[in-house]
């Protein structure tokens, strides 16, 4: 039983023409001490899923459970104490901190009990910031440092799971590297489970233990990181990996994917990816494939794959590790 589990979660909102499913049935499990990456491009619903996972957005259907308890949506009432150990770090380090309060007092929000000042200092040191920084204001820090303050704040609640919504997006390469290292140490040394949502596949590949790939509101593949990269089972995963430009100096252009992401309000019939899929065949436009388990602790939602069997190698050349 993982620390955080989502089963067939659906999140709908009121769009222009009616209800739109930002998340159309997604399942993810985050065990303690493991880093689970959730990747996908704009419009796939990963941010919405992240918010639903912690209760910021109500789920229309499906179950979300944290340490065995149902995660209820956050309303006017104070968040139940049992859920406080499930935390979230936002994407934008410039809007996730109150500009009018010192960073120390904001981190202290999550500290219960008397030794607040000491605990805040410990937290700052844990994330690699000087303890003296606690008395300063957010605008005195760089983006990378602010994200570390945000982590410190999440850590103040002694979390067992932290959901991070694109935490690296606004950071430069060096800050990303530092932050990625911090995440790894949180999982390995403190045993915190991390759900890392990102569009940066290279960093996710380096940091995550397991990866889920999301497209248009659905999880299309789940696997451990290394097998996913060397042998993706879903055509979208393959396309995503092939589209990442490599900084190896070889001058090889990344593979592009034809077409555009469809409007979530009117997804394609059958498999949502079929209009853009190079391998689409007879059943694809007709019937939507379910996310079914494959051998080797993997799962994929694709008609090319046999449930329970070893994943079939997709035949596109140029997919190298």
């Amino acid at each position, binding site marked *: 039983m993982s620390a955080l589990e989502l089963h067939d979660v659906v999140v709908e909102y009121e769009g222009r023409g009616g209800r739109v499913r930002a998340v159309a049935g997604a399942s993810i499990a985050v065990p303690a001490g493991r880093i689970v990456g959730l990747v996908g*491009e*704009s419009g796939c619903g990963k941010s919405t899923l992240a918010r639903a996972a912690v209760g910021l957005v109500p789920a229309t259907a499906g179950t979300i459970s944290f340490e065995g308890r149902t995660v209820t949506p956050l309303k006017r009432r104070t968040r139940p104490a049992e859920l406080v150990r499930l935390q979230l770090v936002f994407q934008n380090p410039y809007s996730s901190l109150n500009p009018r309060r010192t960073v120390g007092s904001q981190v202290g929000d999550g500290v219960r009990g008397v030794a607040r000042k000491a605990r805040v200092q410990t937290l700052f040191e844990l994330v690699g910031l000087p303890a003296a920084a606690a008395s300063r204001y957010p605008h005195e820090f*760089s983006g990378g440092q602010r994200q570390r303050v945000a982590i410190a704040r999440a850590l103040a609640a002694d979390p067992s799971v932290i959901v991070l919504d694109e935490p690296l997006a606004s950071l*430069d*390469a*060096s*800050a*990303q*590297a*530092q932050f*990625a*290292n911090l995440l*790894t140490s949180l999982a390995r040394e403190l045993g915190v489970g991390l759900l890392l949502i990102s*569009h940066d*596949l*290279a*960093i996710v*590949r*380096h*940091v995550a233990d397991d990866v889920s790939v999301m497209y248009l509101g659905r999880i299309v593949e789940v696997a451990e*990181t*290394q097998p996913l*990269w060397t042998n993706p089972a879903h055509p979208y995963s393959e*396309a*995503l990996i092939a*589209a*990442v*430009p*490599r*900084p*190896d*100096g*070889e*001058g*090889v*252009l*990344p*593979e*592009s*994917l034809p077409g*555009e*992401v469809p409007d979530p309000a009117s997804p394609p019939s059958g498999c949502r990816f079929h209009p853009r899929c190079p391998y689409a065949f007879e059943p694809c436009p007709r019937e939507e494939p379910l996310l079914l388990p494959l051998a080797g602790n993997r799962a994929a939602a694709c008609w090319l794959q046999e449930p329970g069997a070893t994943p079939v190698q997709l035949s596109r050349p140029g997919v190298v*590790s």
Partner: protein
Amino acid sequence: MSVLSVEGLRVRLPTPGGDVTVVDGVDYEVRPSEVFGIAGESGSGKTVSMLALLGLLPERSSVEGSARFGGRELIGMPRRTLRQLSGRDLAMVFQDPYTSLHPMLSVGRQLTEHVRLHLGVDRQAAKRRALELLGDVRIPDPQSALHRFPHQFSGGMRQRLAIAIALACRPRLLIADEPTTALDVTVQAGILRLLDRLRHEHELSVILITHDLGVLSSLADTVSIFYAGRVVESGPREEVLQRPRHPYTKALLDALPHPEAAKEKPLVAIGGVPPAPGRIPPGCAFHPRCAYAVEQCLSVVPRLAAAGDRRLACHVDPFVEP
């Protein structure tokens, strides 16, 4: 015969506290049909140096040095002449596809107006050219696209439109400032392939500015690394990215996750932060963060000099086997 030749470019910007040097002596050359890549973190002066070429800096900025484009000197060119030049022979594409197109004019209108303004052709010819351009950048259904507005297109499509407008008058040089940073990775791949095809089909040179070394690696022929307003290393893409010689270049590459690297090995972050303009350390700007700095680095600014297969601004050159 170079398309653009920049020498000793120095830009000072006015600030309430006094003038600040943002670009401090930059040299480079762009050849025909070449993709010239410029890499650097924010604050390195890479964007400002381009704005200087196009005369897009604030009024009281001072620009020194030379930038010869097609035999004409861009620095100090009167604004009116420069405006005629840019958009016609010299074009620029910006990072944000959401604000670089006019929201109230149809796509067709923006394209044709641009063509008619610079080339003076009649409406029919302009429309033909507009359709041709939309086809070049692979916008689906160009006929109806002419009548649509920018907000009806996705980010990636808008960037293609911006490129179409930039190419309308068949420029010799296209400056692309972080053209794919705001886009998804599959969309980015499409734009990079588009740029590659266009530069071959139209004999177009491209200056590609980005902080993403992967993007540079896939598209650029030559790579120039900017740091604190100066060029620290410049040379053929393969040499610079596979065998970096400047400590900053190497550090940038080391900070990236490598597919082959062991998972548990931490990423190597560069200690410290890039200096803010106006607070550049004396001598080599990188020396406070450099593991190989020697005495000379603290006081003497290294000049960008020829060093075998590339140009390098470093006193130490620590990675070369003797």
